[in-house]
């Protein structure tokens, strides 16, 4: 097997109600005319991105999920392997903010208890339509002891920063246990994907494509 060219692999998941902008966060609103063609028709399942944090080369595997899947249908298999979850609401839609609590409960029930969470108030470019203040977003995040950021997929505000922060939080968490430097550790950041993906959790590429110890890490 080829030698590993990175230190850590974090799997991240995007979660949140339908329409909050999960897919747009993953699939850039780009001025690029190519985005309107073949790829956008099929849609992006996940992305791999490489970031460097504190001298470590970290691969982020970021999954989109479908919000139509109601919280009660989101199961353990759906969250499997995720070490990070981006919980997204829409600052112009009250209901999506109220549902954050339900998503949090669902995560508590089904995700790994280690999972690192972050709340994103998306569509912050639409100030004139805002119904959820930034303070309320900050308050709920503080209440649950998790990170918070307002983002805009459309104006590309804070998207990369949010992912770096989440990755860094996972790094903080894992570094304490990182006695075995030879082994890349897998962390997962969960994204909210679309119906198709959630409908077939089996669809998530499993350990096969992953480094040797990926399966092991997923199994704990």
């Amino acid at each position, binding site marked *: 097997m080829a030698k590993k060219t990175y230190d850590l692999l974090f799997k991240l998941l995007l979660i949140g109600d339908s329409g909050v902008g999960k897919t747009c966060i993953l699939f850039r609103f780009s001025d690029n005319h190519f985005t309107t063609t073949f790829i*956008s028709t099929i849609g992006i399942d996940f*992305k*791999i991105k490489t970031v460097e944090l504190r001298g470590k080369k970290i691969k982020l595997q970021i999954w989109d999920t479908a919000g139509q899947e109601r919280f009660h249908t989101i199961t353990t298999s759906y969250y499997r392997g995720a070490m990070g979850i981006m919980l997204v609401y829409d600052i112009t839609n009250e209901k999506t903010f109220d549902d954050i609590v339900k998503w949090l409960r669902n995560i508590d029930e089904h995700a790994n208890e280690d999972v690192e969470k972050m709340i994103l108030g998306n569509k912050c470019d639409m100030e004139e339509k805002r119904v959820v203040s930034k303070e309320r977003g900050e308050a709920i995040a503080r209440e649950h002891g998790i990170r918070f950021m307002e983002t805009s997929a459309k104006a590309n505000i804070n998207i990369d920063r949010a992912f770096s922060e989440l990755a860094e939080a996972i790094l903080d968490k894992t570094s304490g246990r990182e006695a075995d430097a030879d082994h890349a550790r897998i962390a997962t950041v969960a994204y909210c994907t679309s119906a198709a993906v959630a409908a077939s959790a089996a669809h998530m590429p499993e350990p096969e494509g*992953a480094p040797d110890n990926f399966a092991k890490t997923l199994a704990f």
Partner: protein
Amino acid sequence: MSEVENSEVAVENDQKDYVEDGKNKLNVKCKFCGSKILDKKSAKYITLEKDLPLMQQDNNRKEGEIQNEQIKEFYHVENMYTFENIGFTHTVANCKYLSCADCDAGPVGFYDMDTKHSYVALSRIEHA
């Protein structure tokens, strides 16, 4: 840019310029935004005949029709985590298409669901 003959020759010599010890000698980047797709020497050069949908489909094409182009030169990537930055589409006919993780341009290649191997088309990327 001056002589047409020279550019012809350059195409012939593509492989020599870009491939060393059977691998990509240079970094592989997105043609449109420069996002780094593969680190140098991380993928194997192979030839293989495969139809890939055009990156830009003609707007006047028939509805539902997909315009393809046959590609013969690829970089073969056995482990998906070898990629620096890449997007994977949803599955179509046992394959996922690869796209730029930063500007979503694509397909720049495909991923075979059976083998779990990825293939990046040389003609759809830039070496740097």
